[in-house]
């Protein structure tokens, strides 16, 4: 008896579309435009995220005050988050918090893998500083630290760096471009449906 798999493959082969021309990759794959960091900050701000540009020394204070401003006292962090980026109190390390436990956090602080200036996007890749996917999803506030060196200009540059993480390590990726939103109500964009309603991006020189 033929399986569904056999039958589908047979039908696909029978349809036999035949050879095609090679794929033209004339779109922009590299870029080194000036004003990379400014462009990134502008475009993230366009999504109504709160963007702060600081020096390395000031990062710690900036993160703490972002949390204080919002009255966030229980803060989740990935175990690999540098000490300098952790607030002085209220830190809960994520060693496998359940969804319900994640829901008791006021916010999280993480780093990221790479950021894209053209689209104002931050990419989390499940690394030791990015954290698990659920960590940056459930709590209402996400403070994300981006090192200026991590910013590239266009999406293909980011994809080529992420390629090896996916092929060799099968890392799950999350591209974040602003806080969660919907445009379902008469097309007016409303922030904050299920992901964090508050996104703070701290860009460190």
């Amino acid at each position, binding site marked *: 008896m033929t*399986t*569904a798999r056999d039958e*589908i*493959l047979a*039908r*696909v*082969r029978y*349809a036999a*579309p*035949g050879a*095609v*021309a090679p*794929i*033209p*990759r*004339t*779109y*922009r*794959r590299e870029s080194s435009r000036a004003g990379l960091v400014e462009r990134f900050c502008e*475009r993230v701000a366009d999504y109504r995220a709160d963007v702060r540009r600081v020096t390395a020394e000031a990062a710690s204070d900036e993160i703490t005050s972002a949390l204080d401003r919002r009255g966030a006292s229980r803060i989740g962090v990935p175990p690999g988050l540098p000490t300098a980026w952790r607030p002085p109190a209220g830190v809960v390390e994520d060693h496998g918090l359940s*969804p*319900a436990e994640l*829901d008791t956090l006021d916010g999280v602080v993480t780093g990221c893998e790479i950021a894209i200036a*053209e*689209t*104002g996007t931050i990419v989390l890749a*499940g690394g030791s500083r990015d954290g698990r*996917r*659920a960590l940056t*999803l*459930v709590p209402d506030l996400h403070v994300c630290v981006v090192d200026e060196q991590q910013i590239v200009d266009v*999406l*293909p540059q980011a*994809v*080529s760096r992420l*390629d090896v993480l*996916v*092929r060799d390590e*099968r*890392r*799950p*990726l*999350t*591209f*974040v*471009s602003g806080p*969660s*939103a*919907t*445009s*379902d*109500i*008469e*097309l*007016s964009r*409303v922030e*904050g*449906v*299920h*992901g964090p309603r508050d996104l703070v991006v701290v860009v460190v020189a």
Partner: protein
Amino acid sequence: MIEPCPAAARRELANDQLRANLANATSTIRAKRARVVAELDDWEDLREAGRAIKADVLAHLDAYLLQFEAAATAAGATVHWARDAAEAAAVVTAVAKRHGADEVVKMKSLTTDEIALNERLARDGVSALETDFAELILQLDDDWSSHILVPAIHRNRTEIRDLFASTIAPGLVSDYPADLAEASRLYLRERFLAAKVGVSGANFAVAETGTLCVVESEGNGRMCTTLPPVLVSVVGIEKIVPRFTDLEVFLQLLPRSSTGERMNPYTSLWTGVTPGDGPEELHVVLLDNGRTRVLADEVGREALHCIRCSACLNVCPVYSRTGGHAYGSVYPGPIGAILTPQLIGIENAKTLPFASSLCGACYEVCPVKIDIPSVLLHLRRRAVEAAPERGERTAFRLAARVMSGRRRFVLAEHLARLGFAFRRLPGPLRAWTRTRDLRPPARTSFRDWWRQR
């Protein structure tokens, strides 16, 4: 519920609220799309690459499907193959039952709508909770989608408030959008945290790595694909892209074409199972359900290039006036007019290819350059071949005879001048004159004028 197109269209046109919402929505998105596309100098290069990649996929689909299966399996997923809707739904039901779940949480997925997953699950005692804001509205009100991207576009904020107040948020007074979103957030959060099984679709399935990719705005997709311990992803076989690198093209084409943003809020990519991060068990259902039939049509198979952006809907003069319900199909608008007849058989959707003025605007905005007008013409011919109408055939034969003889033609012209008293044509020709004004024939025919000149 589903009526054939012209009748349904007439009904939808009479709905003023719908027309106002649609006009507002489509013109807003059109403007946004135009703005962000203009920002990219290499937009046309991206479109051409997108088209070429999809053509390559279809040309070697069997090899790519096998590659995907191997890579996904090596990464810890269980890959299933489903010939039709029933087989696909059966996989989801079996997984739910095995885990003792009588409810699954799902994100918006046209593929699952296509296979009527919710109804099939319900028949087996499993309920599917829609978590996309618009889908939730439709589900609570037993309504169905009118737009690929903004399914409840035909609803305004007051209608939504009333609906919520009588279902998930008793006592809700405000119709301010942020408050409506908050009501749905609170209601759904409980269910996300407790869910045992999540169901998703996928925008792209990477053959090289076995990676699935979902593009969304709200975060409910992340909820469904990250929190529950078990995930089932239903993926049409045409969603394959060959290499991870190819996403650099599609992740630029899709957000700008669909919501008119540089990038949508959340894009998630997962490759099999990652211990300690996300579901412990992943099932991927590769779905045919008529796609191999589309593939077998040399002209029509372009429809399988579609990346479900809905740009064609927003520029279509027909869709932007009638909305999705008029098409009577899960896929509305121009893409629906060419995909649905091929998926379900032209004899079951023979009016759809005619729901178009052939203006070609859809082709201009399609991010993967699907030549929709050509496919529409091709399908019109197939529709006529499948079910030729005797009256129409006779009329054309008669017209051919009249026009091929000079004396016959001249006589016909005289008769037309005399008979123009009948502004409305009789019988089956009535449909023609009901929506068009017949112009009176010229008093002197061209040949007479030429002779007298």
